[in-house]
């Protein structure tokens, strides 16, 4: 990759991160919280995009990694008072570890079998959360607000429910995942992942251990999804089994497709658009599943590239 293109990519991504930091001073209260939530969910989508967009492996069970992060973090805070940073770290580890173990089994299959297996295990994880209800409190869910110590900064205690803390913590998590994904996309590893997506057989012929690359992508993807889940638990103070349901495996797919699979900006854009689409339509109907289902059908039929995919194809070939 040429130095010029690399510099352009770097400037663009830093500018976006900077802009997201700056908007918090202008946003009205309602949108302030919304954008914080979008940032956390977009982190989930970024993890998904690494696997689906770049490596070409479609997963229908990503909610299990999100939930693994959320529950590892939430339960440890709830039972052992580990504190938010510790809980977050545990969440990342839990998402990554689950993905690593799951990958060893699931990556033995390919094509549609992989899809079915991911969906199946995602659902099994959801049922497991419900089955061990006494420990996980799965079907009712629980809140963390009383278990979190306040952040201490400049002598003042700041709760995680404070909007500014929430926004900036969400921004930090998002920025981390966003830059990691951009870095990977621009690195030689990213090129191999894209090669696997294009044609796995030929990539293997060139001497790459494609299983190892797919496994790496799955682990990273799971760890990022786990980070998003843990951040969600801490910042929005609710942990529940509904976050492990199939719908939460479909959301990152929808967000990524809408924003543009295999683009670094797509997940953020798709999450934002979809969030506000459901938010606006909920004003006149509560049938939000129509919006989800209809969007999926419309994307497949008329707009398979997604927003950033179209932008890249038409105007900016240099986008990663």
């Amino acid at each position, binding site marked *: 990759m040429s130095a010029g293109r690399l510099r352009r990519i770097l400037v663009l991504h830093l500018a976006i991160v900077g802009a997201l930091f700056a908007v918090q001073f202008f946003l009205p209260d309602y949108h302030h919280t919304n954008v914080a939530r979008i940032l956390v969910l977009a982190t989930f989508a970024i993890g998904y995009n690494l696997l689906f967009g770049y490596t070409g492996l*479609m997963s*229908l069970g990503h909610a299990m990694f999100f939930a693994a992060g959320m529950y590892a973090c939430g339960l440890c805070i709830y039972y052992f008072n580990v504190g938010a940073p510790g809980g977050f770290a545990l969440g990342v580890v839990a998402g990554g570890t689950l993905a690593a173990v799951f990958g060893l*089994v*699931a990556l*033995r*299959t*390919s*094509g*549609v*079998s992989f*899809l*079915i*297996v991911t*969906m*199946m*295990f995602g*659902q*099994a994880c959801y*049922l*497991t959360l*419900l*089955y061990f209800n006494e420990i996980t409190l799965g079907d009712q869910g629980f809140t963390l607000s009383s278990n979190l110590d306040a952040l201490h900064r400049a002598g003042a205690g700041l709760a995680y429910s404070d909007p500014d803390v929430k926004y900036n913590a969400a921004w930090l998590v998002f920025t981390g995942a966003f830059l990691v994904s951009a870095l990977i996309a621009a690195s030689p590893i990213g090129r191999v992942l894209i090669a696997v997506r294009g044609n796995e057989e030929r990539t293997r012929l060139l001497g790459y251990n494609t299983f190892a690359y797919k496994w790496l992508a799955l682990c990273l993807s799971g760890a990022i999804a786990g980070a998003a889940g843990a951040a969600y638990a801490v910042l929005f103070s609710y942990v529940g089994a509904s976050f492990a349901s*199939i719908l939460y495996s*479909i959301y990152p*797919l929808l967000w990524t*497709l809408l924003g543009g699979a295999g683009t670094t900006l797509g997940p953020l854009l798709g999450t934002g658009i979809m969030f506000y689409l459901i938010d606006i339509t909920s004003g006149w109907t509560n*049938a*939000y*599943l*129509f919006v*989800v*289902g*209809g*969007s*999926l*059908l419309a*994307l*497949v*039929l008329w707009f*398979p590239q997604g927003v950033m995919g179209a932008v890249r194809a038409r105007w900016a070939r240099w986008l990663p």
Partner: protein
Amino acid sequence: MSFGPHLFLAVLEGTVTAFVLALTALGLSLVFGVMRIVNVAHGEFFMLGAVLAWYCSTLISGSPLLGFALALVVAPLLVGALALLTDWSVLKRVDYNPESTIVATIGLLYIVQQLVLTVFGPEARPVAAPVYFRVSFPWFGYSGYKLIVAGLSASLLLATWYALSRTRLGLYMRATQQDYEIAQAFGVPVRNVYATVFALGAMLAAVAGVLIVPVQQAHYLMGLDPLLLSFIVVIIGGLGSLKGTVVAAFVIGLSDGIVSVFFSPTLAKILATLLVAAVLVVRPGGLFGDNRA
């Protein structure tokens, strides 16, 4: 009740589950075998069958038997028509691309779910069994209707087998499955075969839904469990292998029934998924699938 009769009851329950599951999973497997696509909305076709059976039973409120007979005709026809519409308006347009089809059928899943939630409502509604009698064993009485379910499912499985192996349509299907292009070169109307198979798969699920609703009640989320179990069955049996599907349906159905009776239905599904993991480690292509890779 002592252990022996308890186990007998569990095996009975498991057998009924197995037959219905075989019927549902066969639809999914047939569609995959011939068209190489996975229909994620398959469970919703099952649910639609159950919900339509409820509407039929309220339409003819006097006689449960007549309502049931009507449902057995109407539900598969309506669901089959919906499947044809889906095939024509969506699947054909994305050229049966596996990934696009999956995304599209997920979209369909949510649209159907929301539609039923809006029209039918969130509550579970019971449907009376068409016939009511108890088969009395020395230790307990057993619902006769459940045995009829098993019998009807078995005859439908046989009918499907007959259609596949003895009729022209079956020949077309097998030809398309083996080699799509050669079949076309020999004058098999491949596109029509696709549409027919997709509709047939949906109809099998709908019939299974009609059969199960007197035992289970109709609910807009009831499609998820059969979808999960069907997935488990086709993966264990080997994607695209009909024989594998039926064999695996019996393994999973029986174990599901037994674990459900002794422990809990949720645990049964978790264990079945772990069994899939074990099968994948030993034979990545499933028991009867293609393991050359």
